[in-house]
């Protein structure tokens, strides 16, 4: 089921982009998933590892800090059967593909195909496995509870931080490095709306993503959260309730603000609900699942507006708001609303979650920005101006996604 989440995000990314870049967006999604899977198998897993596996550890004040795994490259030490470790590897191949699709949304209509592949290699080979080791591979964040008595350690069952926030912060870095699309901002700084070209694809993508997230949250809860398989029903209920509440809240907010529900913002609300449910779907009561989704759905339309209108961040698909901000809210919800916070002491769990979020902001964001900035110095990531006006399909692929239709008029204006 998990690859359905990738299908969903690919459709959402494509639908929210321009028609002149639609084929490029889908091809980029395929290439990014391919690069992520191969790079993760070659080097990524050796840095991520699994709890109890080989790792580089050092001690401070008698406490061990597990920083990075030391598994051999190419999965050489693993027997890929039905063992939990091999299931983790399979889930991670899908998960790293999902994380890699998130920045595609923010770089839509201007990010070169070659650059997306190299940037994905950096994400799948270094950034993702390193943080995932800290959370899921027996690393220091997961051990905060055992080593320092900080709650139950940093808790994230379904990849809210490792997949969603890491992907969202990479999306933010890419947006800053690429800059806005031509025509997005006037010289005075006022933003112009560039609507997605196919909202049907976007909404269909949301339904695919729902199926994918049911698998992602369930398998994550069992493999990483230590949940009993019988908890899968609770996970599925919470995932669905969170997405539903988030979409309805986004619909209500956009109806109040704009006089009617905005389809693309409601779709983003649905995704934000799925994202926010990921951290604690196996620990939440259904009422808390609804609350988690409702808050995510209220946050997303305002976050998208803030980033676009006030902060000059041109994020065509709203990926930063959905995945980074929705994900950070999901991590907070584990401490405040879940059974984990109640069992281990709410203050301690709040501190554990806070340390995890501080690591995302203070380590992952500078790392992913720095890597992509360096890449941009040696290999320009943004397509040239002419290519932006022609569209990514014609510029990089030589043919459009919809050749029998005249889908935009800029060619004639420019020509």
């Amino acid at each position, binding site marked *: 089921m998990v690859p359905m989440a990738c299908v969903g995000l690919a459709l959402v990314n494509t639908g929210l982009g321009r028609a002149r870049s639609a084929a490029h967006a889908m091809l980029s999604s395929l290439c990014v998933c391919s690069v992520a899977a191969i790079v993760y198998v070659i080097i990524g897993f050796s840095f991520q590892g699994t709890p109890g596996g080989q790792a580089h550890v050092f001690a401070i004040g008698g406490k061990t800090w597990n920083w990075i795994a030391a598994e051999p490259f190419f999965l050489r030490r693993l027997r890929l059967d039905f063992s939990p470790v091999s299931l983790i590897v399979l889930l991670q191949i899908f998960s790293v593909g999902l994380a890699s699709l998130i920045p595609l949304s923010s770089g839509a209509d201007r990010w070169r195909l070659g650059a997306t592949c190299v940037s994905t290699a950096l994400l799948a080979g270094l950034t993702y496995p390193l943080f995932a080791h800290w959370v899921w591979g027996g690393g220091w964040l997961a051990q905060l509870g055992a080593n320092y008595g900080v709650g139950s350690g940093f808790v994230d069952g379904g990849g809210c931080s490792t997949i969603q926030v890491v992907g969202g912060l990479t999306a933010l870095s890419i947006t800053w490095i690429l800059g806005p699309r031509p025509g997005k901002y006037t010289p005075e700084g006022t933003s112009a709306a560039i609507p997605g070209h196919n909202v049907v694809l976007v909404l269909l993508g949301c339904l695919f993503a729902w199926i994918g997230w049911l698998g992602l949250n369930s398998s994550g809860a069992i493999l990483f959260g230590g949940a009993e398989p019988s908890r899968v029903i609770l996970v599925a209920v919470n995932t669905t309730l969170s997405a539903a509440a988030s979409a309805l809240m986004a619909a209500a907010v956009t109806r109040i603000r704009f006089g009617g529900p905005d389809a693309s913002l409601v779709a983003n609300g649905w995704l934000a609900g799925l994202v926010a449910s990921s951290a604690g779907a196996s620990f939440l009561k259904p009422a808390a699942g609804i609350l988690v989704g409702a808050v995510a759905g209220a946050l997303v339309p305002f976050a998208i507006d803030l980033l676009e209108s006030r902060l000059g961040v041109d994020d065509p698909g709203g990926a930063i708001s959905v995945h980074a901000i929705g994900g950070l809210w999901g991590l907070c919800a584990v401490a405040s609303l879940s059974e984990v916070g109640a069992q281990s002491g709410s203050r301690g769990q709040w501190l554990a979650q806070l*340390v995890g979020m*501080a690591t995302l902001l*203070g380590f992952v964001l500078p790392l992913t920005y720095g890597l992509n900035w360096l890449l941009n110095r040696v290999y320009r990531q943004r397509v040239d101006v002419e290519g932006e006006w022609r569209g990514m399909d014609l510029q990089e692929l030589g043919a459009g996604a919809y050749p029998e239709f005249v889908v935009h008029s800029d060619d004639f204006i420019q020509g």
Partner: protein
Amino acid sequence: MKLAGLLLLVAGWGIVMSAVALLPSLMGRAGFALAGVAVELLGLALFVNSHLVLSAGKG
């Protein structure tokens, strides 16, 4: 300004890590961790502002 923002982000994380590793009490750790997050947010604000200035310069 961009580099200062980046350094503040990392410095804030350093404060949070130091609080967890060095302080014994939960309240002390929480206080310093919050201070570290505040430094990170300051760095993020500088970082965002530096990109706003760059965008305005290009416009």
